[in-house]
C-alpha cells in the first residue's frame, strides 16, 4: 500500500493533545492529518483508562478518558481532520522545497511544512515474553496481532493471553485453524465473560485446548515454530507442538522510531522551547507528555496550552505571507464561521 497526501500539519499521535492541536491549528485555517499506531483516537486515555475518571480537566469536575476523547472529537469535527490509524510514523525527511515528508510503517507518505509530535509516552507496542530466540520467528510464524486471518488457516495455533484479544481470536480462529490451544498463566480470564464461556464450551467439547502455564521456550527452524515449552504448576514442563504462535500480553509504550528522527533528546523526551514548543529542528514541534522543558508538568492541560502556542508558530511557517491575527472565539465572526456556529446577521 502506498498513498501520498499533502497537508499543512502532520500530527503524530491522536491522544488528547494531538486532538486539541487540530482545534488550535484549525482556528488558524491549518489542515491536519493525524497518524496513530492504535486503531482509535484518544491515546492513553482511550487505550489504558477509558473508564477511569480524570479530575483535573478545567471545567470538568470529573470526566472519563473516553468521554474526554469523544468531546475533543466533537470539538474538532468542524475542521475535518484526516486520521490514519494503525500506522506508525517511521521516518521523516526534509524535502528540497523546505517541507517535511513523513512515511509510516504501512507505506503512507504525508508532506507538510509542519510536523507536531504529540506522541505521549511513545508508541503502544506489544509486550513480548522474555524468550530471546522469539525474534527469529517474528513475522514468519510468531505474531502479536492479526492482520490477515489466512496466515493461520489450517495451522496448529497456540494463542497466549487472558484478555479480550486472546479470547476473541481463539473463537475466531477455531473454525479455520487445524487446532487452537490457549495458554494462560491462571485459570481465570479478564476477557468478556461471554467469550470466556464460549471458550470453555469449546474446550469441553474437545474442539480446542486450554493449558494453564507460562511459555518459557520455543523450538523450530528457519523462522518456523515447531513447538513451545510451557511450564505448568500441575503437569510440570509441557511441549506444545504448533506451527503458529499468537501472543497477546498487552501493550506497553516505547518511544519507537521518533528516537531516530534526528532530534535532540533528553532521557527519551524531546526538549522544546517554551515560546513555540519547537524542537531542535525548525518546523518540528513537540507537545504533551513527550516534550521536556524546565518546569514541565505531564498534565493534559499543559499539553492543551502547548498546542495553542505551537499553533501560532505553525501558522507563520505554513503561511509566511499572511498576517497572524489573534482572535477570540467569543467575538470573532470569522472564527465562529469556521466552527459552524456563526449567526446569520444579513437578515
Amino acid at each position: 500500500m502506498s498513498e501520498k497526501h499533502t497537508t499543512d500539519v502532520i500530527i503524530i499521535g491522536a491522544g488528547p493533545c494531538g486532538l486539541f492541536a487540530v482545534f488550535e491549528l484549525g482556528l488558524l485555517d491549518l489542515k491536519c492529518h493525524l497518524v496513530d499506531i492504535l486503531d482509535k483516537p484518544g491515546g492513553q486515555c482511550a487505550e489504558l483508562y477509558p473508564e477511569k475518571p480524570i479530575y483535573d480537566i478545567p471545567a470538568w469536575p470529573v470526566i472519563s478518558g473516553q468521554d474526554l476523547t469523544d468531546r475533543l472529537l466533537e470539538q474538532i469535527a468542524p475542521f475535518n481532520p484526516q486520521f490514519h490509524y494503525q500506522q506508525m510514523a517511521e521516518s521523516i525527511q526534509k524535502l528540497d522545497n523546505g517541507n517535511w515528508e513523513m512515511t509510516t510503517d504501512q507505506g503512507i507518505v504525508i508532506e507538510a511544512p509542519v510536523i507536531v509530535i504529540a506522541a505521549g509516552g511513545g508508541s503502544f507496542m506489544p509486550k513480548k515474553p522474555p524468550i530471546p530466540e522469539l525474534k527469529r520467528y517474528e513475522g514468519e510464524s510468531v505474531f502479536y496481532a492479526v492482520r490477515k486471518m489466512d496466515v493461520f488457516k489450517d495451522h496448529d495455533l497456540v494463542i497466549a493471553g487472558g484478555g479480550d484479544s486472546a479470547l476473541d481470536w481463539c473463537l475466531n480462529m477455531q473454525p479455520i485453524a487445524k487446532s487452537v490451544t490457549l495458554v494462560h498463566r491462571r485459570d481465570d480470564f479478564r476477557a468478556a465473560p461471554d467469550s470466556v464461556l464460549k471458550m470453555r464450551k469449546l474446550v469441553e467439547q474437545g474442539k480446542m485446548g486450554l493449558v494453564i502455564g507460562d511459555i518459557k521456550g520455543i523450538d523450530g527452524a528457519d523462522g518456523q515454530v515447531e513447538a513451545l515449552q510451557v511450564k505448568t504448576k500441575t503437569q510440570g514442563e509441557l511441549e506444545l507442538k504448533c506451527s503458529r504462535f499468537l501472543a497477546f500480553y498487552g501493550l506497553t509504550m516505547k518511544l519507537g522510531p521518533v528516537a531516530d528522527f534526528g532530534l535532540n533528546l533528553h532521557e527519551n523526551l524531546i526538549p522544546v522551547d517554551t515560546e513555540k514548543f519547537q524542537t531542535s529542528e525548525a518546523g518540528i514541534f513537540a507537545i504533551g507528555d513527550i516534550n521536556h522543558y524546565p518546569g514541565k508538568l505531564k498534565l493534559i492541560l499543559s499539553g492543551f496550552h502547548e498546542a495553542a502556542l505551537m499553533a501560532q508558530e505553525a501558522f507563520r511557517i505554513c503561511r509566511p505571507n499572511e498576517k497572524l491575527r489573534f482572535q477570540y472565539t467569543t467575538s470573532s465572526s470569522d472564527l465562529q464561521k469556521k466552527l459552524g456556529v456563526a449567526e446569520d446577521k444579513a437578515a
Partner: protein
Amino acid sequence: MKIHVTDQEGVKHELDALEGWRVMEIIRDHGLPIKAECGGSCCCATCHVYVDEDWLDKLYPLSEDEDDMLDETFDREDNSRLSCQLIMTEDLDGLSVTLSETAKP
C-alpha cells in the same frame, strides 16, 4: 515514615514516605527507575515491585484488577504487587520493596 527500596541494580535506598501517598509516587518522586506509565490507575504493570516477605501480610489484599495486570508481566512472583496500589499508612512505616525489571523505564 520511611520505606526501603532496592533498585534493579541491587542498590538500596531509604526514602521519606508520606501518609496517603502511593508507594509508586514516593519512588517516582525520589527519581528512582520506575516507569509507572499509566500514572497510578492500575492499568499497566510498569510499577511492579516485589514486597519483602515480612510485609506481605500487612498489605491491603490484591484486587482482581491488580491480579490481571500483574499477569501481563513476565517476572511475576508470589510476592509481586503493583506499587501504585500500595497506599502508605503508619502500619507500613519501614516497608521494604524491590523494583522489578518490568518497572524499568
